[in-house]
Structure formats: C-alpha cells, structure tokens
C-alpha cells in the first residue's frame, strides 16, 4: 500500500512541477504600413486553411472582432456566385391511434448552386473589385509541439489592389500541457488581435 501512495505522491510532484514551469509571456510582433495610408473600411476574411479542429474557428473569431470595431466584413460564404436553385418539400403524415391523432411534419430544403467562397480564383478576384473590398484579411495559426507547447497566430491585412501590407500582427505564446486546444487558440488569437488594434 505504501508503495502505491509513494508512486501517487511522485506523480503529484511531477504534475505540480510540470505545470509550474514558468512560461515566457506572449511575444507580439506588429508591422504597420505608413501612417498616411487610409485604413480599409470593407474587408474580406479568407477562410483559414486549417485541417485540425482546434484552429477552424480562427477566421470567424477575427471577423467578429473586426466587425465589432466598425469594419464591414464581407463573407464570401454568404454570397451567391451565380444562380442558386432552392427546392422545398413539405410532407405531413397523420395517424390515429386509440382516438388520438398524431401529426408529423417534415420539411426538406435543398439549395443547389455555388457561393462565392466556392468560386474559381478569377471570379473571386473580380468580386473583390465589384464589391468594393479594400483589403484581404488572412488568419494563420500553428502549433509547435515542443516542450513547452507553443502556439502561434498571425493576422495579416493586405490591400486587395496590390497586396501591399496594411498591418500584420503575429503572436507566439508558450502554453501549459493542461491548456485545451480551444483555450490555446483563443489566447493567441486574442493576443494577435491586440496588435491589430494598436
């Protein structure tokens, strides 16, 4: 019994020391274009190309924050790239059992057709000008599986006309193994957003 308790105590010590390793504070690097350049008022946030679940909401988080600051965010996922056909099928079934009437309804809505986010690159490029989109916002995230774990997020705003930099903000943070992936992403994205706000 005492061996078991000793092992548990060692595990406890390991856990406490592991979590207590001092982490570096987040490092933020911000680059601004010349102050004379006007700030974009209408932007598009590119969908973050991320295969893992932990970083898939990064673009939406940044888009929400930019919209809160009064920047108009155009969502290519919400705009049609051509004709879209909508079909609605309603089915109602009623049945009677022991004097009671059971009514079941089913509605199936099918929409077929591309959104702007599904369009080819030339159509998307043409849409930037047609919709008056002044800048493109790109969000990138990455995780470095070292000890301690590091998470990185970068928000980069470039002019849609010539790809010139408006602002870029990158944040790198060391994290505890006890942090969940969602907490990790949230922390570095918020850190990178602070750089955009300046």
């Amino acid at each position, binding site marked *: 019994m005492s061996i078991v308790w000793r092992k548990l105590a060692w595990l406890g010590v390991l856990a406490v020391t592991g979590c207590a390793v001092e982490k570096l504070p987040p490092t933020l690097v911000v680059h601004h274009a010349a102050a004379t350049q006007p700030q974009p008022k209408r932007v598009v946030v590119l969908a973050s190309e991320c295969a893992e679940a932990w970083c898939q909401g990064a673009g939406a988080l940044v888009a929400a924050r930019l919209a809160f600051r009064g920047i108009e965010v155009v969502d290519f996922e919400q705009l049609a790239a051509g004709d879209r056909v909508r079909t609605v099928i309603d089915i109602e079934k009623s049945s009677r059992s022991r004097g009671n009437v059971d009514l079941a309804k089913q509605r199936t809505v099918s929409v077929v057709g591309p959104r702007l986010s599904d369009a*080819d690159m030339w159509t998307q490029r043409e849409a930037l000008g047609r919709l008056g989109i002044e800048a493109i916002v790109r969000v990138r995230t990455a995780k470095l599986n070292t000890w301690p774990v590091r998470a990185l997020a970068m928000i980069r705003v470039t002019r849609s006309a010539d790809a010139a930099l408006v602002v870029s903000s990158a944040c790198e943070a060391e994290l505890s193994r006890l942090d969940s992936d969602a907490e990790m992403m949230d922390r570095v994205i918020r850190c990178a957003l602070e750089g955009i706000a300046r």
Partner: protein
Amino acid sequence: MNLSPSAAALPLNAILALPTVCKAQGLEASRCTPASYVNDQKAWPMPATFAAFIDPLLRMKLELAGLTLADAETMRLETAQRSERTTTNDRGPVAERTKTVELSEVPTLLALPPREQRAVASSLGLQGVVSTALHIKMGSSGALSFELALELRSLADDQVVLRVRCAERYESPRETATILANCVGDGVLAARAPDALVGRQL
C-alpha cells in the same frame, strides 16, 4: 541552417506558395506518410502528409517576413458545385434539424504543370514562387535524418532569390517536422526581416 544567396534585400512581395513535397531517399515511399511512424493510429492520429505539420508554420513565418502568399492548393481553376440540404422533422413539441453540405471536388492550381502554374501566377500579378521539399534519408549514424529545403524563385527570370535548408535527426513525425518548419521560417526571417524573429529559439 544554410542560407543562400546572400541575405540581401529581396524585392518580391506577392508570391505563389506550393505545398511541401516529400522525398524518401533510399527508403520506401511510405516513409513520407506520418502514419507510418506510429503503431497505434487511433491513439496518435496523423495527417496524410508532412505538409500538414510544416506548411501552416512555415507560411506564417514567410508572411511575417513581409511576403504575401497565395496558397496554390486553395486556388480553384473551376467553380465548385455546392449542394445544401436541411431537413426539419416536427413531431409535436419536438423538432429535429439536420443539415448536410456537399461540395464537388474541382482541380486547383496544383493540377497544372509547373510552367502553366507560373504563367497563371504571373497573370494574377504574383512575382515569385516558393516551394519546399522534405528529404528523408538514413543518416551516417544509422538514424533517420530529415532535411527541409526552401527555394524562392522570381517569376520574371526564374532565378533563385533565396534558398534555406535545415536538417534534424528524427525524433517524432510531428516534432521533427515542426522544428524544421520553424528553422526554415526563421532562416527566411533572418534574410528578410530579422527584427521579426519572435519567440525563444529552439
């Protein structure tokens, strides 16, 4: 880390980024699949290629270095067809809703031969193309060795503008790949924007 040519001011701004390709030198081709390095794939799920570990980090560092990237694998040559279906089942006080979205597979810029890729990139106003290759080989000590090489070329004259190479002894698929991506990314930063080197060096 090897850098060449000199870390002079590089004129490129917007460039085409190709995904990392893997080459197993003197080893079976399956060595280019991260899953081949783990026994229990359920406990340690792995992506299909090493590019999933390398490209997010490397591209972030390239953009931090001042380059604007167009990711080749996201540039569709044709518009994809989308089909959305929402079904609502209403049975008394309970309503259930299910939604499915199907998107057709369409070719991207990667489907084109290199020459046509460069022509399309030029037509879009891009000035360069960056490619990375992961080489896996058996080191002299008998241990696996991973090497990541980046090449940045100008589209105007197809000349190499920057070449960065890092090598590491194999530790684990995820760790070795991300360490190499970080190293090569830092090499680009050292050449183009040394003030933007962030974080503690590995």
